[in-house]
């Protein structure tokens, strides 16, 4: 609990720090632009080729919205890990190790950008729009399922950040691969899972459980012919993924040798 309090303190500090930058109009503009540019490639593909059988634009946008909102949540609350690798290269991770607190909380709290909430808002807006277009009636249980899926997805993306930071303990340099993983997962959201080759489907179910937190909850809520319980898989899958990531992190911290001067 103590650590949680520390984490909220970090967030508050970063938030107040962020307010010092007077670029608010530009931040608002960046929100608007990211709302427009993010899904534009999907929309263009659909406008050019039309829908693939039952796989209409509303369905894609629903799955995409799930991915977007979860990613936004992870970026909001685990941003510190996204920026982390440079602390290894410059050796400033030593400072974190010296403090008698959890390294995870300290790294998590290092960065917090409130304007990252734009992705969450965009994702939720997309989800609402597609649910309305698909004429899905939201019951309480479905709402809970969507919420659980978002939390699970947030844990998965946070796990991706943690893994990429942990890998940096060995590779020292920052990897650009998080961008590819997250971008790749958006890409997967565009494609009906039954058209994916089996090995790709397995990767995105068991390795990076994208389908579990984006596709299955969407399919369960909108009733696309899968068992309703499958929609609950997001939460355990996300927890397992994050747990594995944190284990890797622990191993990384153990084998850390300082690089700075």
């Amino acid at each position: 609990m103590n650590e949680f309090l520390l984490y909220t303190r970090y967030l508050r500090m970063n938030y107040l720090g962020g307010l010092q930058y007077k670029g608010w109009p530009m931040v608002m503009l960046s929100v608007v632009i990211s709302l427009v540019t993010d899904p534009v490639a999907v929309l263009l593909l659909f406008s050019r080729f039309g829908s693939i059988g039952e796989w209409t634009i509303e369905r894609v946008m629903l799955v995409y919205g799930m991915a977007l909102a979860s990613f936004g949540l992870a970026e909001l609350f685990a941003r510190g890990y996204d920026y982390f690798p440079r602390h290894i290269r410059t050796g400033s991770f030593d400072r974190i190790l010296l403090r008698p607190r959890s390294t995870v909380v300290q790294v998590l709290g290092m960065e917090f950008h409130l304007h990252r909430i734009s992705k969450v808002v965009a994702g939720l807006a997309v989800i609402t729009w597609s649910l309305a277009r698909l004429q899905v009636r939201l019951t309480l249980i479905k709402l809970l399922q969507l919420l659980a899926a978002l939390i699970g997805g947030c844990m998965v993306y946070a796990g991706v950040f943690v893994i990429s930071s942990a890998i940096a303990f060995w590779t020292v340099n920052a990897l650009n691969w998080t961008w590819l993983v997250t971008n790749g997962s958006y890409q997967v959201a565009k494609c009906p899972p039954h058209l994916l080759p089996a090995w790709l489907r397995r990767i995105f179910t068991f390795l990076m459980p994208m389908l579990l937190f984006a596709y299955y909850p969407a399919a369960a809520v909108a009733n696309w012919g899968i068992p309703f319980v499958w929609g609950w898989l997001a939460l355990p899958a996300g927890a397992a993924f994050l747990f594995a990531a944190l284990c890797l992190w622990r191993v990384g911290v153990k084998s850390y040798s300082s690089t700075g001067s």
Partner: protein
Amino acid sequence: MGKPVRQDTPMRMLRPCLSILRMQVLAKLQYRASAWAQLSTAVLGAIVQIVIILAFYKFGLRSGATSGLSAAQAVGYTWLVHITLPLLPGMGLDAEVREKIRSGDIGVELCRPLDLYTHWFARAAALRVGPFLLHVIPITLVAFLMPEPFRLHPPASLAGLLTSMLALALGLLLTCATMGLTYVVLMHVNWGDGPIYVMVGITDLLSGANLPLQLWPAFMQRFLYLQPFAGVIDLPLRLYLGTLAPVAFLQVALLQLAWIAALVLAGWLWMRRTLTHLVIQGG
């Protein structure tokens, strides 16, 4: 120190730029594990995107409607985008320059007997050429060795290959000119990171990294061809794929050069103005 260094002759400016390039490429090559991880994710990303594009070509309701790009060309385009990914403005946003501006180390940069814009321009080029050289051979090999629908086909003609490489080199300069502008934006520390993300989002989209520009709606094609970021990768790749004849290279190059000149001039003037009231941060 000692004798004042004359900065204005081009040859004198070229030498330090080349050594910056050499230094950056060597530094990038130091981190081999990171290079491998990046390569494999690029290949995986390309495959995922190809699966999706092929699905749309095969099963889309309007897939019969002809566009400028055949399925095989779209697949080739996707491979080539992943090969040239490091050349895009959005990749490798220069965290070090950001740090230099925020920590006040920019003061040291200003003491160097080298125009700051030129220095950072060379830096931007070096930061991209290094990873690109690492990408180009392995990914091209993988792309050629893929099974049939996923394969990258050889260039449309030898002339097409050569002109596309030349155009890609100009595209790199275009990227660096764009980066020049982002550096000046970064100097306005109190604007925050918002404007940078706006610029990255727009350039990535308009350069055709997410979707080949030729698959965009027909009424936008003229605009897409003329806007500055088509020259970054989309137009060079068209020369490779043969959707633009090698003769068109002249037109493409003129377009690229015009935009490079415009962006460099804008960036350089803006930087000069910004430097007059720059506040060195930190203490």
